[in-house]
């Protein structure tokens, strides 16, 4: 797992430089997300705009990507993102990352812009820049099929963009296979801006494990530990839609653009159990024993005959509760379209539902849109989605995200835009859960649940248990603000390590306190890589990596004023839900105290800027460009 390679690719100069990743960088950043941000922090200066050729697009496999345990099929895609003009970062499952490693590379650092559409072919230590004009315009499925055929190997794994990326829709994805998405932060748009349609890879090179016998035994033990949890058993059967049952019953699912916090009884048809009727088979990412995904088939109705994969919980908001539709057919159909287009369904859903509410409030009219945007009209949802991806008429405006669109529609409209730092929120309604609210607000990539969400906060676990897990006294009550700054801090560092190792969050402490975490990663790293880390060292790597992302945001103008959840969550109380959820909203003073507690825990000052002593302790220096000069 050591002596692995990073390739620096300059698309403008059509040159590739390959270097070995030094052990010292592994000790400081591990790999994946951590190492990606080491390259961007040092090489992308504030004057570089997201779509400038000088921006970097970094693809990084986790330090443990490609192992037969813990769902390590993951890849991180990082860039300066168009939505926030700061950290643009996405983590993708599937099989691309492992294949890239078998092809000899852990990281690809890409800069420049190709003169015409190209794709990269990465094969057993070699990287070729190939013409892709014939692929431009194809959807993500067609592109991957064409690449397999053209290369002549059915085991080729590709990371591609679709229409959304080509059209530089600000929230475009990169995609692998049907539903593996590098899905937040507009990485697909940056890829499109570089005229890079795809990265295809195939490898038959060895990956070395330090202690094979111990590793095999431990990997099996890790898989058993995960599979024995109730969480994994539920996930194996229902996939992430299982979360819907909890959120719509309790009342923390954005409904009709967050005017409500649950559809109530009306939302019953979307209960996870009803997806069972569509399931053909369970499938998994590479190296995953849980298989949280479904292959589904629509048997009847308008979309009869459609076979696809997914949908995830996020889509149940985007093409479900957020727009007042409660129909699995639409969720599945919409999900398939989003995957073909290569667009982030979370962001797309939040922007569509925003437009629907603006229409309800007559800020947007039928004349602006071309048709009516009435809650529950599924054809209107699909049509507006298509227009955004194709950048047709009003879609062209919405494709640039809330902040750009509001410049034309009117700044007042931003009150109804549920976002942080310009990144649309997923469909969760965080106003009743302070730790969730702080998490979306401080997330370096803007509103998001996968950077810190302490989902286990909802379980109201015993405080002794929490103290053992987190190392600090944490209040069991999930409606409390006190100590939740520390809880969010802990999960920020922990999720950074999970992303830097390439482990799947669904096999981490995210939703299940009994899944493997630091204590298990220490021996796993030892057996796989031969490197000794202590738990404390891993936590410090998490802090270092996270602080570098924070610094990148700060130098790009994203400071304390951008660390707040949407204004609406402070002003309008929950209208529905279980008795303890009804009437809840965020308290500004308590939030402010929680934010200060959080900054202090990180070693940042009262403006959220990392203190000098913190940087010194973590060994973070001023950015020093290190992209190799090529002729």
């Amino acid at each position, binding site marked *: 797992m050591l002596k692995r390679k990073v390739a620096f690719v300059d698309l403008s100069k059509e040159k590739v430089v390959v270097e070995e990743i030094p052990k010292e960088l592994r000790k400081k950043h591990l790999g994946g997300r951590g190492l990606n941000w080491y390259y961007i922090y040092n090489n992308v200066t504030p004057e570089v705009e997201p779509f400038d050729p000088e921006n970097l697009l970094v693809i990084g496999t986790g330090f443990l990507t490609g192992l037969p345990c813990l769902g390590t099929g993951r890849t991180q895609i990082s860039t300066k993102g168009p939505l926030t003009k700061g950290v643009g970062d996405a983590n993708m499952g599937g099989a691309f990352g492992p294949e890239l490693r078998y092809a000899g590379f852990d990281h690809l650092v890409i800069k420049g812009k190709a003169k015409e559409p190209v794709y990269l072919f990465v094969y057993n230590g070699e990287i070729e820049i190939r013409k892709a004009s014939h692929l431009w315009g194809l959807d993500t499925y067609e592109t991957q099929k064409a690449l397999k055929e053209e290369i002549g190997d059915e085991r080729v794994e590709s990371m591609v963009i679709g229409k959304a990326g080509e059209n530089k829709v600000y929230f475009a994805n990169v995609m692998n296979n049907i539903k593996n998405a590098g899905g937040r932060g507009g990485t697909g748009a940056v890829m499109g801006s570089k005229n890079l349609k795809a990265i295809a890879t195939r490898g038959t090179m060895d990956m070395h*494990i330090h202690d094979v016998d111990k590793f095999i035994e431990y990997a099996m033990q890790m898989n058993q530990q995960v599979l024995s949890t109730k969480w994994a058993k539920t996930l194996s059967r229902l996939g992430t839609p299982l979360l819907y049952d909890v959120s719509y019953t309790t009342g923390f699912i954005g409904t009709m653009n967050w005017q409500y916090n649950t559809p109530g009884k009306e939302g019953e048809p979307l209960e996870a159990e009803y997806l069972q009727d569509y399931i053909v088979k369970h499938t998994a990412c590479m190296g995953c024993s849980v298989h949280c995904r479904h292959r589904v088939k629509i048997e009847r109705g308008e979309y009869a005959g459609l076979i696809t994969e997914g949908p995830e919980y996020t889509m149940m908001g985007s093409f479900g509760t957020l727009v007042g539709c409660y129909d699995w057919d639409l969720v599945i159909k919409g999900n398939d379209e989003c995957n073909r287009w290569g667009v982030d369904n979370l962001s797309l859903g939040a922007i569509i539902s925003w437009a629907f509410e603006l229409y309800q409030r007559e800020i947007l009219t039928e004349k602006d849109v071309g048709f009516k945007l009435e809650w529950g009209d599924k054809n209107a949802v699909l049509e507006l989605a298509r227009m955004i991806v194709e950048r047709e008429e009003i879609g062209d405006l919405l494709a640039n995200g809330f902040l750009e669109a509001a410049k034309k529609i009117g700044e007042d409209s931003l009150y109804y835009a549920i976002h942080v730092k310009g990144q649309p929120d997923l469909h969760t309604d965080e106003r009743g859960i302070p730790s969730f609210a702080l998490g979306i607000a401080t997330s370096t990539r803007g509103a998001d649940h996968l950077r810190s969400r302490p989902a286990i906060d909802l379980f109201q676990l015993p405080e002794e248990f929490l103290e053992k897990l987190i190392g600090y006294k944490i209040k069991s009550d999930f409606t409390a603000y006190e100590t939740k700054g520390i809880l969010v801090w802990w999960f920020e560092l922990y999720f950074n390590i999970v992303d830097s190792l390439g482990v799947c969050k669904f096999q981490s402490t995210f939703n299940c306190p009994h899944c493997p975490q630091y204590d298990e990663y220490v021996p796993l790293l030892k057996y796989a890589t031969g490197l000794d880390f202590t738990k404390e060292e891993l936590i410090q790597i998490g802090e270092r990596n996270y602080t570098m992302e924070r610094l990148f945001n700060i130098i790009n103008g994203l400071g304390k004023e951008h660390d707040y959840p949407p204004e609406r969550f402070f002003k309008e109380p929950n209208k529905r839900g279980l008795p303890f959820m009804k009437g809840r909203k965020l308290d500004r003073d308590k939030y402010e105290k929680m934010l200060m507690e959080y900054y202090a825990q990180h070693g940042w000052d009262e403006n959220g800027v990392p203190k000098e002593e913190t940087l010194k302790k973590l060994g973070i220096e001023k950015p020093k460009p290190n992209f190799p000069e090529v002729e």
Partner: protein
Amino acid sequence: MKTFLIDPDKCTGCRDCEMVCSLYHEKVLNPARSRITVIRDPLNGIELPAVCMQCEDPVCVLVCPVNAIYVDENGAKVIDYSKCMGCRTCVITCPLGGALIDPVTGKTIKCDLCGGDPMCVKFCSTHAIEWVDVSVANQRIKRATLERYLEALRKGKG
């Protein structure tokens, strides 16, 4: 006597089997060097594990010009590399794709049952591949076949 029982409907395409097979036999991670292969095409909805079924009357043993394949105490058809010359005759003639070529060494490789306790089975979380007693396998196959038959009957009546 034991046999592999493979159920493609349960295979998720995670390829833990391939990874652990290469680790166990070659001491490296490299699915391309695995004895078991998942024919996998998620874009067209296919996951199909394929491995040597340890035939009773194996064509590989029959066609090997240097008699390099022997039967061990577990019934595994194992390649004796002191004899194997890598002529690929077994690779070409096996109707199940059970013999393969290692892309790194060029050697012919095939499943040897890991000494009687196959690693792929241990790592398969959905039991898409099992190594079970023949009588158990027979019962299960019979049951699955009858269930399909009954379902077809019911559909016919419905």
